[in-house]
């Protein structure tokens, strides 16, 4: 009995021990779960950002999306530069991916390309190594296999029974110049953009973007480029695209509206023709550039989507330098077209009056050296108006010496020579108005009377651009106001709201008396309208015009290389157009340029403009 109780006691004690230990086990386990809870808190709450970043880094890719480039319109809303869809055929590897090694997928792409080649009629632009490169570098993006699909190929594709899974038409915007060569130099061209590290900051991938490399495309790239957007691509563990979402819509670039009138531009280009030369047509009332052409021109479409080295070499090696915009980037000796400036300076000096006469025997003695007039027989007694009409070198040399060089230099600068006009084009040349200081510096020599005589007749070191001479013509046309040539009227967004307007800028009004201006204008009137005027060939029916021809020798003396010039404004009263045209090598201004300007002005005033436009 006693043992039995002991036994019960022992059993009870044993059970109690077991229950105590059970509680210990329970607490240890709950402690273990609590530990897990703490670790989870650390991971999911305290350090969550760290892991979110890791997740983002490994599964998100940002692609820079180029914005639609702004367009260029002329003053009548005719489009000169636009974007055209370029149809590309692209493979989407995330849909084509074959299980196993990448080689299977590459083989599949190759297989499909073979079938498509027959259908499209042209080999794909990518080879096997390009596929591998794509897999390594740009896996989440579409793999473009054909570019520039023509409508026929697109139609064949649509009608065919080809398995289009993992294959899609992909549209790339391409720059397009609907008028081709027209205003090519003004447009300039685009090329592949070189994106800076700053542009690419935060992007893993980018698509090829274009960037203005010359002309207006370059000058207004900042406005037309727009703002690139971004696309977020979620990739899976193999690096293939899983999903995409637009992160930031690209903002299309702004459109440019030019002062150019493409009808006049076309006529101007036709007027110059095939010979190297340049022409600028300004509106004298506000400086608007109605046409600005350089010959030979180029077709900016040749530079799209990128310039082939063959075309580049061809353009650069051509002695006619088709890529140079002669109207602004080339400098010429003005020759006689400078004489109106000399005349204005002389008449403003107080020493010369319109009635001041000089005798022209055919030559002029500067010290012991004779300077020839272009007419070896001489012009006899000439006054200012006659001297302009006859372009008498002797007269201008004489009045140049009489009034002194400072006045001429000052007047040349007043009309804008020797300095860039500030037109919105790149590579503008400033030309040169020489002077004593310049000569001292360049030639370590003093300014001599012969230098004054040379500049007075537009020779010597004096150089100008055709655009500068057009400004001179416009200033003479409007009676003395120098305008900054206005090429761009404004910039506006896609919705048509102008964000920037460029009002006409009158730089200054010449300090010349109305009488002096009248005399010079009348002299120029005679150049065109008088029976003996050197610019008679430019004359057209029904419109009174004024102008000045010029022929400037260049190159070696006696080499008979002559720049032929002509300035023109019309109608004589209330002029609408001020024109400067130069032909690099010609016989003379009157013979070479006169007929060309006749064609231009005849078409402008009398001709059927629509015909030239079409």
């Amino acid at each position, binding site marked *: 009995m006693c043992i039995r109780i002991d036994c019960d006691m022992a059993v009870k004690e044993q059970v109690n021990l*077991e229950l105590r*230990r*059970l509680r210990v086990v*329970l607490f240890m*386990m709950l402690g273990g779960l609590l530990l897990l809870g703490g670790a*989870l808190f650390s991971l999911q709450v305290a350090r969550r950002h*760290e*892991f979110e970043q890791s997740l983002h880094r490994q*599964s998100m890719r940002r692609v820079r999306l180029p914005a639609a480039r702004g367009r260029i319109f002329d003053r009548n809303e005719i489009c000169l530069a636009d974007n055209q869809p370029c149809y590309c055929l692209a493979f989407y590897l995330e849909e084509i991916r074959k299980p196993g090694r990448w080689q299977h997928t590459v083989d599949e792409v190759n297989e499909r390309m073979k079938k498509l080649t027959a259908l499209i009629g042209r080999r794909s632009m990518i080879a096997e190594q390009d596929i591998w490169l794509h897999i390594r570098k740009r896996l989440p993006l579409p793999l473009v296999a054909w570019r520039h699909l023509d409508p026929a190929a697109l139609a064949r594709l649509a009608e065919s029974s080809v398995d289009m899974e993992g294959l899609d038409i992909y549209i790339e915007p391409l720059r397009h110049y609907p008028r081709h060569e027209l205003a090519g130099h003004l447009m300039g061209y685009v090329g592949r953009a070189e994106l800076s590290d700053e542009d690419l900051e935060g992007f893993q991938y980018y698509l090829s973007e274009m960037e203005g490399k010359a002309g207006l495309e370059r000058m207004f790239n900042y406005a037309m480029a727009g703002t690139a957007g971004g696309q977020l691509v979620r990739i899976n563990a193999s690096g293939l695209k*899983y999903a995409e979402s637009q992160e930031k819509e690209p903002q299309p670039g702004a459109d440019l509206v030019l002062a150019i009138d493409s009808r006049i531009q076309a006529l101007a280009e036709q007027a110059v023709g095939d010979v190297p030369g340049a022409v600028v047509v300004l509106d004298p009332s506000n400086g608007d550039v109605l046409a600005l052409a350089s010959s030979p021109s180029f077709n900016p479409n040749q530079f799209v989507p990128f310039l082939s080295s063959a075309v580049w070499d061809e353009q650069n090696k051509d002695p006619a330098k088709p890529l140079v915009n002669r109207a602004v980037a080339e400098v010429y000796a003005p020759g006689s077209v400078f004489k109106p400036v000399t005349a204005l300076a002389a008449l403003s000096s107080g020493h010369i009056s319109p009635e001041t006469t000089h005798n022209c025997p055919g030559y002029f003695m500067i010290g012991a050296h004779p300077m020839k007039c272009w007419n070896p027989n001489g012009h006899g007694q000439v006054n200012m108006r006659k001297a302009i009409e006859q372009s008498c070198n002797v007269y201008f040399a004489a009045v140049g010496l009489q009034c002194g060089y400072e006045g001429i230099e000052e007047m040349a600068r007043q009309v804008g020579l020797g300095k860039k006009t500030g037109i919105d084009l790149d590579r503008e040349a400033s030309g040169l108005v020489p002077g004593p200081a310049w000569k001292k510096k360049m030639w370590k020599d003093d300014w001599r009377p012969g230098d004054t005589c040379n500049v007075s007749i537009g020779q010597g070191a004096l150089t100008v651009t055709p655009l500068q001479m057009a400004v001179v013509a416009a200033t003479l046309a409007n009676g003395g106001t120098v305008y900054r040539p206005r090429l761009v009227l404004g910039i506006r967004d896609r919705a048509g709201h102008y964000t920037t307007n460029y009002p006409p800028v009158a730089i200054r009004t010449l300090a010349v008396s109305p009488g002096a201006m009248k005399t010079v204008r009348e002299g120029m009137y005679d150049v065109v309208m008088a029976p003996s005027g050197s610019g008679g060939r430019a004359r057209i029916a029904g419109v009174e015009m004024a102008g000045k021809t010029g022929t400037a020798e260049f190159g070696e003396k006696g080499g008979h290389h002559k720049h032929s010039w002509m300035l023109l404004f019309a109608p004589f009263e209330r002029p609408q157009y001020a024109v400067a045209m130069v032909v690099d090598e010609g016989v003379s201004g009157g013979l070479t340029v006169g007929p060309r300007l006749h064609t231009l002005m005849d078409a402008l005033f009398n001709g059927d403009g629509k015909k030239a436009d079409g």
Partner: protein
Amino acid sequence: MREFLSNLRLLRRMNWLMLATICTLIAVGVLFIYSATQTRDDSTARLFQMQLKWALAGLVIYLATTVTDYRKLRDVSWWFYVMAVILLVAVLFFGTRIYGARRWLMFLGVGVQPSELGKLAVILAGATLLSPPAEKYERIPSMWWLFLLAGIPMLLVMKEPDLGSALVYAPLVMAMLYVAGAPSRPLVLMVLSGVVLVTVVLGAVALPARLGVTPEGQDRFFRAIRLSDYQRDRIEVFLQPGKDPMGTGWNKRQSEIAVGSGGLTGKGFLKGTQNLLGFLPRTVAPTDFIFSVIAEETGFAGSVMVLVLYGLLLACGLYAAMVARDKLGRVLCVGIVTMIFTHVFVNMAMTIGLVPIVGIPLPLVSYGGTFMVMTLFALGLIQSVYVRRSGL
């Protein structure tokens, strides 16, 4: 028949909270297996249906076990043990080789993992061994018998090789001995020596390179202690988190990113990107790494809910042990609860990088037929102990 009906009446007395917890965990498992396999278009996409079928089968077994008197185990536990050992030997010869280890036996097209049966066999036989019938109460056998009992299947499982599963034997043997009343000093010593052993192995992986021991010497040491290359890799990855993120370290790192990026409230059901994008390897997402999927999609809130569910389950299990009418019931419950706890702890801890990666599934939640049925059978035993509790 009358006995069976009276047993059936016992069902009314079962721990309903525990059953509810089990069903909730199973439901969570099925839902997130679906989520983990949603992008698959092969047979894997049906895994959640398979899991549901296994769970239903398991619940039937669960109820059947509940109504069966656990005391009958005394008669069958040894047979069960012998059968498990035979299967463990068989799997070494006839097992299906997956990733270099023979862990599966195919019976009529159904795969069985004998190592799962082994654990249960040790618990049943151990409980029987540790709780002799009342009349021989004072004759508690030496703890060495239990070590021998557990040692045989443990070594066989190691041989497969499946070190992770083998290590689960240790804590459950310890817990059973402890609750059965074994002297605490040798137990503490044993736990300490286990800790020292683990430290030595971990140190052997990490240190020689720093101490200047040649790679050849290192290799000789690892051959001597039979640690395979992949086990070494896993330990190295655990010790050096930055190591080889694209190779061996991949699973660990991706699992941590999944859990961590889940944040407080998660990304939403079916929206876990780590799983969707395949960063969390597809082969393990519905099985060993199911908790990563849950934690990513439900966040800290959801993870804690899962922890609470397991806490409830474990507490219910140990409560059953406390109210058990005899020692067999107590030791049996402790063994089963410890096994489940060990799985839960090791699985979650590996998911969040607290322990090296070992292939141990999350009970009731990870995809796996054998394990599901076995777990429910074990939990049914606990319920069987509970419905026959003392003081009624």
